[in-house]
Structures are given as C-alpha cells and as structure tokens.
C-alpha cells in the first residue's frame, strides 16, 4: 500500500512539475466549452434574400415587405434580371431568390392563379429546405390575410409543446456532446502519450523491475489523470450551468458517477492504445484520430444516431461517447433518474472492463 501511495505521488509530481502541460489540460476544456457552447448553432438565421419582380404591384411588394421585415431574413435588394440572380446565387452571395411571375396581380385576380418561384441555395440541404419552408409560410400567411379567408371550414389546429428545451437552445443539445468529445480527446492522448513516452525512453523497463505488480502500477499511473479529468468535468459543468444557462435537472451525484465511469473508460482506452504502439508520434495520431472522428460523426453529438442506416447504427454502439452523451442528456437536460440510464451505465462499465482486460493481456505478452 505504501509503495502504491508513493507511486501515485510520483506520478502526481510528474504532472504538476510540467506547468505548461497542466495549463493546457485545464485551459483547453474551458476555452472550448465557451467557444462551442455559444457559437455552435443549427438555427437557420441571416438568410440573405433578394427579389426579382418584372411587374411590381401592391401584392408583390406587400409580400416582399413581409419577408424583409422577418427577423430570419436579411434583405439584399432587388435584382434586374434572372441572370444577375443566378450569378449572385452561384457566387454564394445569396441564400434565397424570390421570383414573381410577370403580371402577378392581374393573373391572380383574373385567372385565380399566379406563381412565385423560390430559388433556395440548397448545397446545404438542411438550410435550403428550411429557407424555402420559412418563405412559403410567410407568403401563405400574407395571402390568407389579404383574402380574408380566415373562415375556411374544416380546420384542425395543432398546439405545439416543446418538451425539455422549450426555448430551443442549441447549447442544450451540444453541451453534453462537447463534454464527451473534450474528455475523450484529453484523457486518451494524456495516458497513451505519457506511457509510450516512458516506453520510448526506456524508463518503463526500470519500472517493470520494481516489486509493484503490473496491474497495480497501471492503476497508480491513471489515478492522477483521473483526478485532473474529473476537475475538468467539474469546470465544464460549472461553466455550462452558470455561463451557458444549461440546466442540471437531474441528480448531481448520478451525473458525477456517469462522468467518473466515462473518464475511467477513456483513460482505459488510452492505456489500450499505449500497448498497441511503440512511438509517441503513432500514439498521438492513433489516439487523435480514433478519439475525435468517431465522436464527431457517430456519437449523436451532431448527427442523430436514429437517422443512420443500420450498419452505422451498429458501429455507433461501440463508440463510448454515444452512451455517455445519451446518459448526460437524460440526466442533465431531461432531469431523469437512475432507472432511465442504468443501461448506459452498464454499457460504459462493460466497455471499461473489456479495454482493461485487453490492456493487461497485451502488456503481459510484451514482457515475455
């Protein structure tokens, strides 16, 4: 036990001595949670709109006025020709072009039919279709008002309620994801690189000669990292609550428990990586790629897992962050208890046990 404490002490000293690294490890999550928490936003805003109206009349200018005044749109002006319109769209200077047909009002009154074309820049399909939806709603609303058609029979109203996130704030969705991402990257690189560094320099062999058991030694090595990562987690949590206004609806102890398990899991992954590679460069590349890309793409942080095809859904279930993010969203945002997250917790524990087993098996092999 005394040896163990001494060993943990030594590892702590190693880390604290390197001020700069410590500063980076603590500072990085602070800056990132603030940057991303405020800036990442899926909402479609600032839609740059222009009009083309060959024969202006009260009706078309009325519609244009209505769109101009809407806070989602930013008015860019009237264009003189379709060619000019096309060019602005191609250059990426416009998001939406509203094109009225010739003799709009006359046709509407006489034949009862007139057309408006909405050219939405849909290279981003999400933005393109939402833009068109917004504009359609504004035009339809204007028409209804103008024609006093408020009394159409057989109308069914829908009354909407937004649950868990009534103000539709993006931070609610992204904060758990950013937690999962930042912890994964820091913990994995931290453990993998520091252990491979010892391997590279040969100091690892010296440690093997000590009377401490292999398992105990690895455990001792991870304890300081565990502490630092948990401090990171607390900082992220405080910033999310006090600065980003994200609620902590559920039990704080349960949330901490989930975080500790996840941190243990990511550190174990770092250990596993350290047994797979011999050079620091490779440790960095391997842990950077495998910790960042799957979390960004497959964890549900940005893209909902439910939308993915079956093969990728299966693939996403081996990404630890997916279960962490799920659990944090449920406990933190939706305020749920342990009954709703026991599955995620068990999966995270199972993954940790698996990784540790692989690590121990690998490092034994290397010694023989």
């Amino acid at each position, binding site marked *: 036990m005394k040896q163990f404490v001494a060993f943990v002490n030594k590892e702590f000293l190693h880390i604290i001595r*390197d001020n700069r*690294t410590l500063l980076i490890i603590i500072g990085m999550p602070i*800056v990132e949670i603030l*940057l991303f928490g405020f*800036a*990442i*936003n*899926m*909402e479609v*805003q600032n839609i740059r709109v222009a009009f083309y109206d060959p024969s202006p009349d009260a009706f078309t200018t009325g519609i244009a006025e209505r769109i101009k005044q809407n806070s989602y749109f930013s008015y860019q002006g009237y264009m003189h020709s379709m060619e000019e319109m096309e060019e602005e769209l191609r250059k*990426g200077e416009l998001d939406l072009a509203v094109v009225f047909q010739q003799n709009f009002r006359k046709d509407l009154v006489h034949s*009862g*039919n007139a*057309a408006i*074309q*909405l050219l*939405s820049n*849909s*290279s*981003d*399909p*999400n933005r393109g279709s939402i833009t068109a939806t917004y*504009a359609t709603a504004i035009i339809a609303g204007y*028409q209804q008002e103008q*024609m006093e058609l408020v009394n159409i*029979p*057989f109308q*069914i109203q*829908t*009354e*909407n309620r937004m*649950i868990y*996130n009534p103000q*539709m704030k*993006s931070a609610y*969705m992204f904060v758990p994801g950013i937690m999962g991402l*930042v912890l994964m*990257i*820091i913990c994995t*690189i931290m453990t993998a*690189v520091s252990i491979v*560094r010892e391997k590279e320099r040969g100091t690892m062999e010296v440690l093997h000669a000590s009377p401490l058991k292999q398992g105990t030694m690895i455990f001792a090595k991870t304890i300081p990292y565990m502490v630092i990562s948990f401090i990171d987690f607390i900082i992220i949590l405080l910033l999310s609550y006090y600065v980003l206004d994200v609620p902590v609806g559920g039990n704080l102890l349960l949330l901490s428990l989930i975080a500790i398990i996840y941190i243990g899991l990511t550190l174990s992954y770092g250990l596993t990586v350290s047994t797979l*590679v011999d050079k*620091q*460069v490779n440790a*960095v*590349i*391997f842990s*950077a790629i495998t910790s*960042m*890309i799957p979390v*960004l793409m497959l964890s549900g942080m*940005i*893209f*909902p897992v*439910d939308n*993915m*095809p079956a093969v990728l859904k299966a693939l996403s279930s081996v990404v630890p962050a997916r279960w962490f993010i799920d659990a944090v969203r449920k406990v933190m945002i*939706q305020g749920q208890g342990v009954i*709703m997250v026991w599955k995620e917790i068990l999966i995270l524990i199972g993954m940790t046990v698996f990784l540790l087993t692989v690590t121990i098996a690998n490092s034994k092999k290397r010694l023989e």
Partner: protein
Amino acid sequence: MKTIKFLIEKEFKQMFRNSLIPRLIILFPTMVLLVFPWAVSFEVNNIKIDIVDHSKSVYSKRLTDKVAASKYFILNDTPLDYNAAIYNMDNGETDMILEIPSSFDKEIVKSQTSSVGVSVNSVNGTQGLLGSNYIMQIVNDFSSDLRTELVNTLPNQSHTSLMRMPKIDIIPHYKYNPGLDYKNFMIPGFMVLLLTILCGILPALNIVMEKENGTINQINVTPVSKAGFILAKLIPYWVVGLVVMIISVVLSYILYGLWPAGSIIAILFSAIVFILSISGFGIIISNYSETMQQASFLVMFFILILILLGGMFTPVSSMPTWAQTIAAVNPFNYLTKTFRMIYLNGSTLRDVSGNLFALVIIALVLNGWAVFSYRKRG
C-alpha cells in the same frame, strides 16, 4: 540548394521509416469517405411517434393511419394516456406525442373545427422543429381531405366561395442539390477535414520530436538557413496532402459519383494553398512546444476550433458576430466554402477568388511565422 535537397531526402526517409504513415495516407481517406458520409444526415425521416387517441372515432383513426403511413414517422406506440406517452419519451423510445382529444369527432361534425396536441422532444432543436412542421403538414392535409369530402354538406354559399378561392402557386427550386442529398454537401467538407488532420498533426509533432530526441541540436550547428530548414520540413507534407487530396477526389467520384461541377484545377489549386497554411500552422505549434504531449494537446485544441467553428457542421452565418470574426481568419472555413461552391454550385475560379485570396494571405502569414518562431539555439 544542395543542402535543402539532402534535408528533404532525410525527411522523406524518416517519414517512411514509420510504417504507420504510408498506411495512414491510403487507409485514412478511404475509411472516412467510405463510412462517414452515410452517417451525416439531418434529414429527419424516422421520427418515432406515440399517438394518444382519446377519441377513438372514425376520424381520429383516419388521422392515426395517415401519420403512421407517412415516410417521416414511425408509429411507436398508442398508449392510453398522456403520462404513459411521456414515460416513453423520458425513456428515449419516442420523440413525439400526438394527442387527439375525446371530442375530436364531434367537433369536426358540429363546428367544422378542432385541435390536436403535439409534444416534441426538443433537446435537438432542429429535429424538434422539423418534426412539428411535418406533423402540421399532415394535419393540414387531413383537414383539406375533409374539406373536399364534406364541403357538399355545408350551406351552398360557402361552397361556391371555396371553389373560387384564388391560389398562389409557390414553387421551390432546391438549387445546386435538387435531391437535397446531405452526402453531396458533406463530402467536400470531409476532404478538408482529412487535409487538416494529416497536414496539421504530423508537422506539429515533427520539430518537437527532434527536440525530444536531441537531434535538433545537430541541425542547429549546421550552416542551413532557418527558412531552408523549415521548407525542407514542409515539402514532404505538401506531397502527403496532395496525394490524400487526389485519393479523395477519385474516391468520391467512384463511390458517390460526385465530381466538381466547376473546375477540378480550381479544387486542386485551392487545396494546395490550404495545405501550405495548415502545415505551416503545425510547424508553429511544434516550435512553441517542449514535449510531444504539449504539441499534441495544442494541435488538437486548435484543430477542434478550426473544424467546429469552420462551417463544416453548422453554418457560420448562424454564429454570433465574434465567432464569425474567428471564422474570417480560419483557413478551414475558406476551403470548405470554396470546395462546396466549386463542387455543388459550379462556381468558377473567379467566383471563388475572394476565398482564395484570403487563403493565400493566411498561408503567407502562417509560414512567415513558422520560420520566425524557429530558434536556432537549444
């Protein structure tokens, strides 16, 4: 000149001595382009919905069927009360709840108007918004079905006025991506992501590795110039970047049939300028770091910022002003924009010249800094 040639040869040899790197250059783009484009989609089409039908009437049954038949929704459950449905939502089994009041049927017949309640899980705001829009569309369709069926049962007057209702046809054109295919939008982004990771991380580890091994001191006592030394360090990464870029362009054509609508030359040219800036940026980090661990944290820190504030996943135009200012000096942002414009909009070299100019400036500043920040003393 001759010294630089030898240095370049040394860098290439060192790079390929590490067996992971050649494999990385081939396998990493292949894996990313093969797998991840399928994961990215905001198109919300499998929304799980619970319908609580208090009315249990002909019309409510029809509405239920209509929702269940829609391609956007999957009917998860039809619980008896709202609380059971909320339990399902807490559990993550359902995303939406449609509640039909018990008087639904009667109201339609008597007063020709009724209402339904919709509750949406809005943790993911976009998904919540789209989901409630879809359900509104279905309900509107349903009521216009009723209108055509039942309009004859109404007094004559309103009947005729309905028939004469003038109509504006709103015709949306989804330009540049008519199928609204998310893959086409994201693949150019993935190319930039690949270049950023490979040509950003590798140089960031390079000089600091020489510092840790002590070999940097040997270089420092040679007469090679600072700029020459940095240039020799950078050239191999330019080659790596270009190879990765060519692999990506060919693969996305083979796998997804995606080929630039504009000029391929413009794609390659802008990629080269970007590779210059990002590898220069890597060298800067390497110059300022003392250990590999520091370098790796720093490079990951900045790469995350470049990517997440660079408009690949979420639009720059939706960000607050200060974040847009960051995006204005972010090379990732410029290249993503350029690639998407050339690939999808068919923009010409002239159309993207503003972005290219910004990239060139960024490349000059970063590489100047890289040379400047390298000190020839231990």
